[in-house]
């Protein structure tokens, strides 16, 4: 639903409502005017009738009474009769629907008898008179089943009235004749009371009918005016909204992203305007709001065109940049991860260095202690060595002596050996001899028996000697080999001892050097220990720094992660932007 339709609808609704209100107000107003008019007419009628009664009562009746005397002529002397007669003479169509009655609760004429509603009004008027008010009343009442506006004025009974309406005996003779007293209700009136009233009734239906007629006119006129107004509104709205619609179309094109189309539409519009200026009734003049709007739209479209073009280009550039950034961030992240790993390794290494250097410091202290202990021990060792050297020198002498002795023993043993050999040979030869002797004895037969026994004994001795000699020989040989081994060992030992002495001397010198060097080492150890301490502290500081660095690297990595996700989001956002911007068709982009 466009604005024009809305305007039309709103205008129509407004006009209709206004018309209805106007018609309603009009009819209300008309009704009151008519009512007032009717009231005025009714009053005029009422007071005319009253005047007729007064004329009849004050002018005609006294004169008639004078002329007639004691008789009674209704046509001359009854005021009600006169009033009713006058009213009946008014043509029905000129009565405006009004009705007039002289109603009484004690009527002489039964036609004038007040009905229930009239009696009520009369009673009300009597009360008003009694309170000192004017006995006049007007208001709505239902009479004979129809709603009526009633204007009533009560008649106050005067003493003069009592002649005819008081006691019957006071009434004129003619009257009594004309209206037999028994059937007549017109007596018994009370002075200074209201017992009859002139009542004019305006039937509401009549008023309504008049008003209704006028209302129809009013409605017809309203509809006519409404139609004219709507046509006018439509024309007016067209005048306003045609350029606006063009702008709206352009705006829709812009909204649809067709900036190129919008620009062309505007250009076409301007071209048409400049070519046929007299045919376009809604020309956009510079001063006109719509013209200004169109100009603004034109400018806006051009600006938007360049802006969107730039945005598109920028979007592409941003996408490229974001992709590059993402790639860089990925590389950075990988580098950071590697760094973190390296840092962890460095940290671990530096921790190890720290631990190792602390251990080294401890070890260094121990080494320094050991070295000084070693120096002391080396000093003691040197002293011990010089003692040992002397002892060894003595040992060399003793060994030489011992060796000499052993050589002597060996010589003696050799002698023994030759003796033993001789003994062994002797024993052998003895054995041989005994053998031969035994053989000879055997050959000698019985003569050789004794000799054979001797030979056997000799051989046993020789054998024993030989065995003993062999034993001795074995022992001597063993001794000799032992002695010569001993001599050799002694020689070797002696040589070794000599070498030992030399080595001991050398070792002593070396020990002296060691002591000197160790004594030199001590201050250096101290320096090294201090250096180690410093290194340990340095390693600890490095470790702490590395751990801080590692945390920093971790944070960097986390930041890079965030950065990466931000880049991804940026990329998505730019992609979204590009998608959005891509809807715009741009000229010359």
């Amino acid at each position, binding site marked *: 639903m466009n604005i024009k339709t809305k305007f039309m609808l709103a205008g129509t609704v407004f006009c209709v409502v206004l018309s209805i209100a106007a018609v309603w107000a009009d009819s209300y107003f008309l009704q009151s005017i008519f009512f007032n008019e009717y009231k005025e007419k009714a009053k005029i009628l009422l007071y005319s009738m009253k005047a007729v009664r007064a004329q009849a009562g004050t002018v005609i009746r006294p004169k008639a009474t004078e002329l007639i005397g004691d008789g009674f002529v209704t046509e001359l002397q009854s005021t009600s009769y006169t009033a009713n007669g006058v009213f009946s003479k008014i043509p029905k169509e000129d009565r405006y629907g009004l009705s007039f009655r002289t109603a009484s609760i004690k009527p002489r004429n039964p036609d004038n008898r007040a009905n229930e509603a009239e009696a009520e009004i009369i009673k009300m008027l009597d009360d008003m008179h009694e309170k000192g008010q004017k006995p006049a009343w007007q208001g709505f009442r239902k009479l004979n089943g129809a709603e009526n506006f009633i204007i009533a004025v009560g008649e106050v009974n005067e003493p003069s009235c009592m002649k005819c309406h008081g006691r019957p005996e006071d009434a004129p003779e003619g009257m009594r004749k004309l209206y037999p007293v028994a059937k007549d209700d017109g007596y018994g009136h009370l002075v200074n009371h209201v017992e009859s009233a002139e009542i004019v009734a305006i039937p509401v239906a009549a008023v309504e009918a008049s008003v209704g007629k006028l209302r129809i006119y009013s409605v017809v006129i309203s509809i006519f005016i409404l139609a004219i107004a709507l046509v006018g509104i439509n024309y007016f709205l067209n005048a306003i909204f045609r350029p606006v619609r063009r702008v709206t179309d352009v705006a829709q094109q812009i909204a649809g992203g067709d900036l190129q189309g919008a620009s062309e539409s505007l250009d076409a519009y301007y071209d048409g305007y400049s070519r046929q200026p007299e045919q376009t009734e809604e020309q956009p003049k510079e001063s006109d709001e719509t013209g200004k709007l169109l100009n603004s739209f034109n400018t806006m479209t051009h600006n938007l065109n360049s802006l969107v073009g730039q945005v598109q280009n920028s979007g592409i550039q941003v996408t490229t940049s974001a992709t590059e950034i993402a790639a860089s961030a990925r590389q950075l992240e990988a580098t950071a991860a590697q760094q973190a790993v390296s840092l962890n390794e460095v940290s671990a290494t530096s921790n190890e260095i720290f631990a190792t250097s602390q251990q080294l410091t401890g070890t260094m202290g121990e080494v320094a202690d050991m070295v000084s202990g070693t120096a002391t021990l080396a000093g003691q060792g040197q002293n011990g060595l010089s003692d040992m050297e002397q002892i060894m020198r003595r040992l060399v002498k003793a060994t030489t002596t011992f060796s000499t002795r052993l050589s002597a023993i060996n010589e003696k043993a050799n002698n023994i050996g030759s003796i033993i050999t001789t003994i*062994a*040979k002797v024993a*052998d*030869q003895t*054995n*041989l001899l005994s*053998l*031969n002797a*035994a*053989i000879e004895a*055997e*050959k000698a037969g019985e003569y050789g028996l004794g000799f*054979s026994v001797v030979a*056997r004994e000799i*051989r046993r001795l020789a*054998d024993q000697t030989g065995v003993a000699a062999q034993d001795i020989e074995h022992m001597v040989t063993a001794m000799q080999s032992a002695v010569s081994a001993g001599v050799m060992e002694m020689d070797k030992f002696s040589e070794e001892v000599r070498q030992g002495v030399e080595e001991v001397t050398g070792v002593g010198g070396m020990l002296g050097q060691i002591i000197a060097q160790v004594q030199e080492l001590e201050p250096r150890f101290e320096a090294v220990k201090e250096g180690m301490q410093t290194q340990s502290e340095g390693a600890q500081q490095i470790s702490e720094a590395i751990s801080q660095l590692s945390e920093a690297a971790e944070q960097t990595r986390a930041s890079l992660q965030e950065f990466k996700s931000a880049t991804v989001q940026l990329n998505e956002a730019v992609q979204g932007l590009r998608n959005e911007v891509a809807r715009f068709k741009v000229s010359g982009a």
Partner: protein
Amino acid sequence: MLLLIFYAGKERYGIDSTRVIEVVPSVSFKSVPHAPSYVAGLLSYRGNIVPVVDLSALIGGAPSKALLSTRVILVEYVGADGGEHILGLLAERVTETLKCREEDFKPPGIVASESPYLGDLFVDEEGMIQRIEVDAVLPEELRKSLFTETEKVADALSGN
């Protein structure tokens, strides 16, 4: 009967002492070239050239060791020419004699043709002793050649 005991290898053997002329110490022999390996060489005994047979080499295969107890048993030997000769038997550990009776000897039950010199067996507490038959010690061919040639050699020597 008296047996002269000797050893060849680890076995004990015996020679009838009635055949023994004398037991002499082993000396260095004159070697006989091209002779069998069990011929130890030649020995001069009281002017006689005595061929010496190594019993250890003959019986056990290994020549006798040069010990004091290794001696030469000189025995009477009837040569191929029928004359009395002296034969030297080189043996190890010739230091004992044993008194025994002829009837205690028992035949071995097996006689090898290569060793006809191995005779009856005698048993004592230390084991068995085999008697060497001196006449069968030398192989026939050697006995012939040996003593003919020795005779000539002896003649040649005596002639000088």
